């Protein structure tokens, strides 16, 4: 031992090359050592959920910065790095992800994209939401502006996914989740979308509630176009259900005596209340126009077109709104068609016959009250009567063979008188018309069938 101590005093010259070796070793190995430690530290954190992870190595010291989602997670992440073999020190710069109070998440849709904003609790739920948005909205650009934060309510992912599903039903709008309160605003993509969203929101997990639902439905549009050239009535847009659909088409058939009804209607939910009660009289008003368009958009009825004569235009402008259910608005842009050229009485007679061969003036059963459905037909007759101002016209009422002849004659007289009264109210001089009731004395068909009786119940215009 003594020898070793004695010899050791002579070991010093080797220290000089040793220092040189050390210098070279330090020069060559530092970068590789640092790279290896960084790689193994990152590998040790592979399964740990962290945000903004940053690892830098200086010599054997690791500077570890990250945002953790819980205190336990933070401590275990630091311990994992500390346990990496070769690491000398860990400079712990980790923090907890900030807590959001209130925890707000939102999804906003505009024309071109869906923007996910606010906070998400974990990177996994953030990516899950982005993926779900991309998958569910097919082709729409998804912009991810979500930040990570703690403090999300329970079952956040489930709720956010359900809300994302609803954003697909919007044309534009925003859904905001503030803690457990949900606010929705915007415009539904389709009719019924608003109702579908409201139904889906009933499946929210317990504890969540809808604070505000301001989703608007697109306007409920019904249109009718009377085309005098093609002699058609085209119905487009929506009706609430098949019953209303059938009723409207039937009403159109009664009111438009000569036009073919082209039915392009579709049934859809979301109709304003009183839809049928407003549309049927509006169709009646349209039937009185020579050409015209009826547009019903939500509770607004717009009628535009040409009336056949002045008084009709006035009646249409003023009369229709009164029949509407409460809350409905009526706008009429009715002008008067230029008066047709006068014709001589023979032509007038032909025109009357032609009109009355297409449709019949109808009355309440057993009464002399003209049904409103006949207004369009009467307007055409009045227009024709105006074209031959010098002709005197016999308005002849006929009934079928049922019942007492005296009663039939009285009824036919009263009905002929009702028609003349109608013509006079339209501005024609009473002196030009002679109401006559023939009862069932001049049948045009046999009274032994319903069809024949229907043909016999009629009003005829005979130019004298």
């Amino acid at each position, binding site marked *: 031992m003594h020898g070793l101590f004695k010899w050791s*005093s*002579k070991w010093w010259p080797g220290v000089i090359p040793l220092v040189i070796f*050390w210098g070279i070793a*330090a020069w060559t*190995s530092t970068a590789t050592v640092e790279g290896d430690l960084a790689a193994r530290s990152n590998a040790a954190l592979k399964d740990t959920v962290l945000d903004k992870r940053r690892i830098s190595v200086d*010599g*054997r010291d690791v500077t570890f910065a990250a945002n953790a989602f819980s205190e336990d997670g933070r401590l275990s992440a630091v311990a994992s790095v500390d346990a990496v073999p070769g690491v000398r020190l860990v400079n712990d710069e980790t923090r907890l992800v900030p807590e959001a109070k209130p925890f707000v998440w939102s999804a906003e849709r505009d024309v071109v994209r869906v923007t996910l904003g606010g906070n998400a609790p974990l990177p996994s739920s953030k990516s899950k939401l982005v993926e779900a948005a991309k998958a569910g909205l097919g082709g729409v650009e998804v912009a991810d502006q979500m930040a990570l934060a703690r403090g999300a309510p329970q079952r956040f992912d489930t709720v956010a996914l359900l809300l994302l599903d609803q954003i697909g039903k919007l044309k534009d709008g925003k859904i905001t989740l503030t803690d457990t309160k949900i606010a929705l605003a915007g415009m539904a993509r389709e009719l019924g979308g608003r109702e579908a969203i409201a139904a889906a929101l009933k499946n929210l997990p317990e504890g969540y509630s809808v604070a505000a639902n301001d989703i608007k439905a697109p306007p409920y549009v019904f249109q009718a176009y009377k085309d005098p050239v093609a002699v058609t009535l085209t119905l487009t847009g929506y009706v609430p259900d098949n019953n209303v659909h059938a009723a409207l088409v039937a009403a159109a058939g009664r009111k438009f005596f000569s036009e073919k009804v082209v039915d392009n209607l579709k049934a859809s939910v979301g109709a304003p209340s009183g839809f049928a009660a407003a549309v049927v009289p509006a169709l009646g008003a349209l039937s009185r126009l020579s050409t015209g368009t009826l547009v019903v958009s939500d509770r607004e009825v717009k009628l535009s077109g040409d009336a056949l004569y002045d008084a009709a235009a006035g009646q249409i402008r003023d009369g229709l709104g009164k029949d509407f259910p409460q809350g409905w608005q009526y706008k009429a842009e009715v002008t008067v068609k230029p008066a047709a050229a006068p014709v001589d009485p023979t032509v007038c007679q032909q025109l009357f016959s032609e009109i009355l061969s297409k449709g019949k003036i109808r009355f309440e059963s057993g009464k002399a009250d003209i049904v409103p459905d006949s207004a369009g037909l009467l307007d055409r007759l009045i227009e024709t009567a105006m074209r031959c101002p010098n002709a005197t016209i016999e308005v002849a009422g006929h009934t079928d063979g049922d019942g007492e002849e005296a009663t039939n004659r009285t009824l036919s007289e009263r009905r002929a008188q009702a028609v003349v009264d109608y013509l006079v109210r339209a501005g024609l001089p009473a002196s030009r018309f002679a109401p006559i009731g023939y009862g069932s004395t001049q049948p045009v068909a046999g009274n032994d069938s319903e069809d024949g009786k229907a043909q016999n119940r009629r009003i005829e215009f005979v130019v004298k």
Partner: protein
Amino acid sequence: MMALATFFWGWLLAALLLGFGMGWIAVVHRAQGVSRMWMRWLALLAIALLAASFSRIVPGRFGYWLDLFLVMFALYLVGCAIGSWLRDRVVSRSRPAN
């Protein structure tokens, strides 16, 4: 530190062999040895460096370089001790033959 030896084991071996060579020579070397006083100071310095290493007060790369130096130095000393001891055995065995 040992986990990282794969990156510089060659230099550790070199330090060990250098020490072995130096120890081998030191037994028969006639040069002036380090004085007892110097030895004490050097030992003190070594202890101070060891203390600095174990207390990890030297930061970053300097800390790594210090550790590396101490490991190489320790192996050098071990090499020296083995070298001197072996040389001494060789010398003392050959002496009776003379």
